């Protein structure tokens, strides 16, 4: 039985990785042909980069999760598939049309509904060291709240070449390891495609990016992460692994004091030096973001900033895995 799961884990990981690895170059060509490109303001000369990469990310997720579902049908996998697909549609709409700041949170809340309708959740919230609380009514609100939070959090960290996909690799593999630690093997296998899809997409998204994920890519990754956290009963562990991105959203919201789209910000938190390094702005009106804080110590290249965020992701991943071990300890 265990050997079957190992073979299935290898199979879905390979499908997830190679689906994205093979389809992304085709998607890049299609987007370039249709002139669906955006300017990369942080690159010398402002290269035009194809966007969105969401379709190839979704292909990888659906191909691998449907394969898993064929071998091992469960409402949890179905809930992951439907929620992630709806989040992708929300992202695609946002990629094509500039919508208000409230559109995404509300639309993503709707994408969480299949998890509730399919009953793919357990209304217990587990905490490290202290056990769990049973919150049947409140948990439904938590499900509705969690998908918009994870979706928008990943979307908000997608500001530099390769950052969102590399951050997602680290966070999702931390989640997979944590699911194995708490012996939730079925969802651990279902979580593997997220890490491998992110890994394959990172090949094209890393500096200098050949494609941007766009809202459709970032929301798809974020919503799947949130859905896995709920169906795998690892909500707190998932939140810990996501802390650098949560900090980014927290800093942004606490400085602008309302929910708005990044494109609606008039003052950019980051500017450039003469040699095109990134530099924190001195504009008091500009929002505080994670990148602005990192740059407060002095100008850095885009690659260097990305590496600091990567190290923060690794640190949070370690804390998440420690939290998973602490789930088995009661005081």
């Amino acid at each position, binding site marked *: 039985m265990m050997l079957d799961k190992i073979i299935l884990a290898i199979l879905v990981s390979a499908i997830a990785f190679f689906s994205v690895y093979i389809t992304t170059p085709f998607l890049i060509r299609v987007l370039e042909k249709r002139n669906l490109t955006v300017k990369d303001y942080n690159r010398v000369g402002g290269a035009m980069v194809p966007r969105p990469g969401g379709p190839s990310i979704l292909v990888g997720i659906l191909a691998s999760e449907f394969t898993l579902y064929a071998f091992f049908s469960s409402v949890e996998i179905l809930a992951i598939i439907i929620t992630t697909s709806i989040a992708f549609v929300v992202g695609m709409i946002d990629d094509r049309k500039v919508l208000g700041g409230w559109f995404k949170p509300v639309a993503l809340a709707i994408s969480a509904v299949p998890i509730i309708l399919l009953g793919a959740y357990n209304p217990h919230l587990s905490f490290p*060291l202290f056990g*769990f609380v049973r919150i049947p009514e409140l948990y439904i609100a938590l499900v509705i709240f969690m998908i918009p939070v994870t979706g928008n959090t990943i979307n908000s960290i997608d500001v530099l070449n390769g950052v969102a996909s590399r951050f997602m690799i680290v966070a999702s593999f931390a989640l997979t390891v944590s699911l194995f630690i708490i012996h939730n093997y079925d969802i651990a296998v279902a979580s593997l495609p997220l890490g491998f899809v992110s890994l394959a997409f990172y090949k094209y998204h890393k500096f200098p990016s050949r494609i941007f994920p766009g809202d459709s890519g970032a929301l798809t990754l974020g919503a799947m992460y949130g859905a896995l956290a709920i169906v795998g009963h690892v909500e*707190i562990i998932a939140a810990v692994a996501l802390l650098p991105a949560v*900090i980014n959203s*927290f800093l942004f919201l606490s400085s602008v004091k309302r929910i708005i789209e990044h494109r609606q910000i008039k003052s950019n938190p980051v500017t450039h030096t003469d040699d095109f390094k990134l530099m924190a702005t001195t504009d008091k009106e500009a929002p505080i973001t994670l990148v602005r804080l990192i740059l*407060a110590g002095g100008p850095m290249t885009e690659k260097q900033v990305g590496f600091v965020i990567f190290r*923060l992701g690794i*640190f*949070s991943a370690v804390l998440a895995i420690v939290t998973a071990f602490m789930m088995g300890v009661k005081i």
Partner: protein
Amino acid sequence: MKGIQIFLFIFVMWILIIVGGGLLVLIVAPMTINGYGKLDSILDSGVKALIAMILVVVWIFTLSKIKNWIFHKQIKN
């Protein structure tokens, strides 16, 4: 190390999550409301939800203060 304050902030957030969980499990969850007949379960959930929301507000307020303290120099820049 670049961004050491951010690592510290993440660590503080982690500690606050664990402490907050402890408060919920040990103090809020065992509370029960009796004596209101059919309204008992609704009142029980409502009061617990209210306490949880107050805790979240306190958590955000605390984080905001810690953020200002840790990033004092950076935010002034």
